[in-house]
């Protein structure tokens, strides 16, 4: 179950936003790229980068975010958190996290903190259940006027 698959299945009914945030394991920080750890990381998460320094400007951040988008190929648009990490902090999102926000602006699903709590399958289940919920049916009535 990949995020790309979920996006492909639901992108007409759900808006998907990828938010690029501060690097979790940059080369100039908590680097996991060296030695045995690096090899294990490459094996377990082949698309993850292991040679990126933590971007110090928005321009650098956007450059890395572009590379990330191209490699991960989720298919969804990528937006970049500002250097103050305000959005990442508001959602306690670092290193990685999934949320589903309902039509009323309220959180429907708040995933666990990655990597261990990061579950595309749980997000998919939340989407499936939400889309058949009375709130969504009412919302669809309001939108179509039926």
């Amino acid at each position, binding site marked *: 179950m990949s995020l790309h698959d979920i996006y492909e299945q639901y992108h007409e009914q759900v808006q998907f936003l990828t938010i690029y945030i501060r690097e979790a394991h940059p080369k100039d920080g908590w680097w996991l790229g060296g030695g045995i750890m690096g090899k294990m990381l490459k094996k377990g998460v082949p698309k993850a980068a292991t040679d990126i320094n933590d971007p110090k400007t928005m321009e650098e951040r956007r450059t890395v975010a572009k590379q990330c988008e191209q490699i991960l190929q989720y298919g*969804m648009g990528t937006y970049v958190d500002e250097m103050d990490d305000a959005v990442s902090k*508001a959602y306690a999102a*670092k290193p990685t996290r999934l949320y589903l926000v309902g039509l009323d602006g309220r959180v429907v699903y708040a995933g666990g903190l990655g990597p261990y709590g990061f579950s595309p399958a749980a997000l998919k289940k939340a989407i499936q259940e939400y889309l058949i919920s009375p709130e969504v049916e009412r919302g669809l009535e309001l939108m179509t006027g039926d």
Partner: protein
Amino acid sequence: MPNTFHFMKKDRAWQKKYEASAPKPGDMAPDFELYDINGEKLVRLSDFRGRKPVALVFGSFT
């Protein structure tokens, strides 16, 4: 060079600090405005209210 333990402790402290106020199911999702990877297109979460549910995928490259 600080070691893994130093960074792990720092990350845990960050997570503990912000987890307390992170939105839970039923809470209003914090609104935000962010630009895309080209710095051109602006997205605002609240613009989708009443139109589409939104899946947020937070992450980085490493």
